[in-house]
């Protein structure tokens, strides 16, 4: 018995989440529509419980478990805590929206928690198999979530696109993994790293494998030229689902990339760095330029996500601990801003009305100065203007890039972020300079307002004192890689 416990102890949060999801599934089947809040509350409790378990067993050094399939290190623990937080905020923001649209069902919570479980597995994977398992659990839950609004043809189309392209990406990833396996004879990241560090004469298959892996990763991140699905899915999915897709999975995707490239293929940095340079530059260029042309806010954020992922790749391509740390900081900050941005759309929406057009933000300062101020902070943060935290995220990745001598890349990045500043400024312009287009009062429940305030102010507070979060990122990576 005690052997069993030691074997599984590192994965306790995952096991807990799985048990709770099963419980919610059963309970939800037994209650009627008026008591859906039970599932909501249980989901939040699950997150709280998982957070408690993660904090209680916080690891100070990497522990391999389950026969080398699973790793419990500071990096995974920190990322998991941020995942719980992000998912919790998503649930709070989404509640009213889902209720008004008849989507407030157990399925949503179950899918969200399964997606969370998938992300937790991805974050803690130390083996190609577990990585892939986590990724598919996440992806399948997301496909279903996008399609949850059955009678919406846009949502169904988005889900279909997402599924087909996602499956393609998974296929590429698997193909690449199989080639790396062929070269190194192992699927465990630690063994792969060791074998590659010893040197191999199978260069061509290895590079081929890396190309496929990077292409698969780029698909999942939504980096150009593998970004086609992002705008359609963000736009087509119900906003609550977009909020989910646009926040927590990015954190997991970061872990995914760092585990594969930074841990498994660490010695091959010269091979994948140039690929990431191309992906990053194209993502920043296409993302920022295409965002200007959008009149739909969700589509605009989709393109802005693409450019932000390009920025995050800058940190990863540095291939240093400092670089991964800055990318981690970037992705956590991005998740925070993304939550706020989509959350604001949810907050301004009401029954039968989606506030997802740019014009819906016109004159927000007259309707609600406080919400307009929060959105202003979020927009300036996305644009990377101090004193908001978005600036330090950009500063961190830029210095990682300059450190490896790619000054031209830093210059290109800042020029693209200048283009990006335009469309974020446009939102501020709509809110502050224009007169309202829709004067009706904002019907948002107090709890969403409180969380939104905390979210917006966090962007400012972390902008004034970014050190704690930065230190957490640097420490987690330093102790894990």
């Amino acid at each position, binding site marked *: 018995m005690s052997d069993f416990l030691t074997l599984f102890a590192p994965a306790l949060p995952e096991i807990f989440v799985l048990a709770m999801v099963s419980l919610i599934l059963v309970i939800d089947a037994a209650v009627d529509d008026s008591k859906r809040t039970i599932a909501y509350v249980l989901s939040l409790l699950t997150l709280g419980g998982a957070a408690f378990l993660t904090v209680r067993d916080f690891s100070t050094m990497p522990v391999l478990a389950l026969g080398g399939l699973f790793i419990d290190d500071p990096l995974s623990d920190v990322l998991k805590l941020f995942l719980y937080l992000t998912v919790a905020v998503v649930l709070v923001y989404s509640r009213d929206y889902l209720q008004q649209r008849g989507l407030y069902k157990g399925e949503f919570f179950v899918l969200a928690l399964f997606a969370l479980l998938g992300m937790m597995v991805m974050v803690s994977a130390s083996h190609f198999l577990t990585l892939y398992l986590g990724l598919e659990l996440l992806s399948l839950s997301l496909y279903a979530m996008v399609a949850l609004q059955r009678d919406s043809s846009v949502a169904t189309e988005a889900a279909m696109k997402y599924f087909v392209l996602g499956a393609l990406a998974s296929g590429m990833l698997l193909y690449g993994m199989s080639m790396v396996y062929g070269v190194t004879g192992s699927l465990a990241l630690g063994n792969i790293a060791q074998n590659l560090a010893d040197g191999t004469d199978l260069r061509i298959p290895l590079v081929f494998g890396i190309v496929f892996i990077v292409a698969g990763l780029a698909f999942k991140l939504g980096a150009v030229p593998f970004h086609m699905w992002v705008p359609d899915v963000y736009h087509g999915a119900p906003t609550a689902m977009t909020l989910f897709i646009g926040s927590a999975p990015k954190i997991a995707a970061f872990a995914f990339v760092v585990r594969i490239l930074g841990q498994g293929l660490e010695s091959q940095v010269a091979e994948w760095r140039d690929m990431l340079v191309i992906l990053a530059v194209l993502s920043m260029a296409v993302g920022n330029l295409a965002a200007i042309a959008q009149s739909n806010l969700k589509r605009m954020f989709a393109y802005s996500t693409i450019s932000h992922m390009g920025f995050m790749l800058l940190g990863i391509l540095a291939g240093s601990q400092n670089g991964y740390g800055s990318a981690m900081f970037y992705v956590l900050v991005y998740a925070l801003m993304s939550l706020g941005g989509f959350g604001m759309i949810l907050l301004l929406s009401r029954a039968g009305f989606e506030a997802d057009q740019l014009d819906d933000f016109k004159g927000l300062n007259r309707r609600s100065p406080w919400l307009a101020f929060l959105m202003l902070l979020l927009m300036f943060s996305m644009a990377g*203007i101090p004193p908001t935290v978005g*600036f330090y995220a950009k*500063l961190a990745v830029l210095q990682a890039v300059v450190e490896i001598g790619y000054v031209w890349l830093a210059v290109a990045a800042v020029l693209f972020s200048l283009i990006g500043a*335009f469309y974020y400024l446009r939102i501020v312009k709509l809110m*502050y300079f224009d007169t309202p287009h829709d004067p009706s009062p904002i019907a948002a429940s107090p709890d969403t307002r409180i969380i939104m305030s905390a979210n917006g102010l966090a962007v400012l507070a972390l902008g004034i004192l970014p050190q704690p979060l930065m230190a957490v990122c640097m420490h987690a990576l330093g102790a894990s890689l």
Partner: protein
Amino acid sequence: MFGQSILSLVIWVPILAGVAVLATGSDRNAALARWIALAGALLGFIVAVPLVSGFDTGTSAMQFVEKATWIPAFNIHYHLGVDGISMPLILLNSFITVLVVIAGWQVIQDKVAQYMAAFLIMSGLINGVFASLDGILFYVFFEGMLIPLYLIVGVWGGPNRVYAAFKFFLYTLLGSLLMLVSMIYLYFQSGGSFDIQTWHTTTLGMTAQTLMFFAFLLAFGVKVPMWPVHTWLPDAHVEAPTGGSVVLAAITLKVGAYGFLRFILPIVPDASHELAWFVIMLSLIAVAYIGLVALAQADMKKLIAYSSIAHMGFVTLGFFMFNPLGVEGGLVQMISHGFVSAALFLCIGVMYDRLHSRQIKDYGGLVNKMPVFAAFFMLFAMANAGLPATSGFVGEFMVILAATQVNFWFAFVAATTLILGAAYTLWMYKRVVFGSVTNPQVEEMRDVNAREILVLGALAICVLAMGLYPKPFTDVMHVSVVDLLAHVAQSKLP
């Protein structure tokens, strides 16, 4: 108790006052917002006074230094300090903020709290720019001040305010982003430090110096603004509310010029010497060509905006003469221009509040209806033209003298400003103030009220005091300037 943290107070008092003003909420509490704003601005000025009284003019070292760890991950510090170059600018800014709050007292009736708060917060941020000794801290303040200014132009501005606000923001952001990359590069070259004074002693190769010179030149040149990146300024000035124009002209332009002395000259001295001709040429074009452009303006605000560009050309010209007279002349010119341009924009504001026009042709014969105002306006117009005994004369004269020591032709072109400046300012003055009243609406204009006299009178005293006895100002700067030039004379090539 606060002796050790005067600079922090100078930065944070206005910002916190701004937050307090915001807390008053909607326009129902407009009166309260105004009084809190005035109290905050006055307090901000009062806490800046010890900077003068406690200032040691005998040293070029940084004074009132505060240093605390801020972001150890990147070795970034909350590091403040002033020398003879930055201290007068902080005082100027704190002083102008008080005037701006008073000037907007009755004029602004819409979203009063937000208006006042934007100015107070911006004032604190600008003080931060002048007091920062850490590159990133500087950058945070430098960029942060764009946010309130963007809102000021965009929310309370004229008909074309949206265009002006975007142009202004994106233009200045372009410059500062390249500066950010340079700063990160310096961080690695200096062995992992964002400290500006460490950068002053970092050796750099010529290529790196040249590239950084252009990056910094773009960042600060846009702010100054130098020809040919000046085009945002006339737009922003014309569309901004009076207070916005005052702060733009009197303060934010100085941020750009200040950057030349704190960053460009000491960090890349070899490139500065090598490329001085380039800056001198741009400055002389600004002085002569923009002076001619000003002559052709029909809109008073535009005219003063172009005149600002020409005057700032003098400042950059003086800096690149590399002698104490030139640099001090440039600094005196900066302060003087802060007073004079602020006063002129306030004068235009006074007229605009009554007639709602900035076109010169709508006025004429103002002296008949507003004699007191006409007298003030006369003084400031003369100062703008560089009449001796006004502050405008001192700086221009020093720079022209300095230029003569370097090259006669520089001085010759620069001296055309004495003719052009007089021409466009006095011609405008003549058309607006003298002659007979042709516009019936001018008949109904009332003379300046007590509030306006207070604001204009305060500026008039400054203009005259500086014009008659500039020595206290130059004394404050002298040691710092001499030390800076000694530093700039040394090569930093490896």
